[in-house]
């Protein structure tokens, strides 16, 4: 995914019903089919806009060859459910507040581009590292 021209990170508009939230049950689902994206190959090329990393002495990064983005489509079905923790947050330093759940999550996704296809394994709740579902206000909505 590309960063948009206003520097919003990896966000793309989708149909309203691609997201379903039952917040009081700490449940949500994000389901998108065949979203057109750019495959930037790796994180370094994504963040350097395809320039790679030079690997020059003095920088703590390995050399990563430049890679041009490739058009691809991705489909994904992500489900948040099950409460591991909950908190009311009022963070003046970052100007955000709201109610947040730490939840379980499963994901099923696939990707396709010329010459390659990927299909993820059966959704497994044990694969979750950390997931959060929140109802929040930030920026001008933070008071």
């Amino acid at each position, binding site marked *: 995914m590309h960063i948009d021209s206003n520097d919003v990170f*990896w966000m793309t508009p*989708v149909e*309203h019903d691609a997201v379903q939230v039952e917040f009081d049950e700490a449940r949500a689902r994000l389901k998108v089919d065949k979203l*057109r994206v750019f495959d930037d190959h790796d994180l370094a090329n994504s*963040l350097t806009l*395809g320039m790679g990393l030079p690997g020059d002495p003095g920088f703590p990064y390995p050399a990563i060859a430049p890679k041009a983005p490739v058009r691809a489509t991705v489909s994904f079905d992500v489900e948040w459910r099950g409460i591991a923790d909950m908190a009311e947050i009022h963070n003046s330093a970052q100007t955000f507040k709201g109610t947040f759940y730490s939840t379980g999550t499963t994901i099923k996704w696939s990707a396709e581009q010329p010459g390659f296809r*990927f*299909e993820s394994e059966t959704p497994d709740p044990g694969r979750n590292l950390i997931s*959060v579902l*929140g109802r929040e206000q930030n920026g001008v909505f933070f008071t």
Partner: protein
Amino acid sequence: MNEEDFAWRKIGRRWLSRRNLICGAGAIAGAGLLRPRPVFADDNEHATCVLANPIPGGGTPFKPFGVVVHHNPLNAANRLAVANINDPSQITDFDGFVGLTNIHGGGTGTNTVTGDSTILAFRADMGFSQGNFIGVDGRQHEGTFAFV
């Protein structure tokens, strides 16, 4: 600003121009996806996307190379201490629902030319935002976004 910074900023401007074109193309595909207002200021193909604004924080993982990442990755250490998270939204001036996940797993990659397949691992940082936001036009919009 040193010469290297300047060179990268110039590259960034060149790519920004290209990304603006991508934005326009994407907006055509996405016309009408934001409710209740369309994503365009008007309906002509040269119209500017009504973009959201990024959160002010973030970092530059490959500093001095690369762009600023306006995103706060979740830390698995906070799984049972969600009060310690940073703002999980990528959009500022936002009022709504946000979901974020850091998840890993496996799957099968297939060379669609040869039919050869192999087991691959993945790690995904994904989510969504759904609600009201103030766009770059200073007006309030309702939208749904996937974080991919």
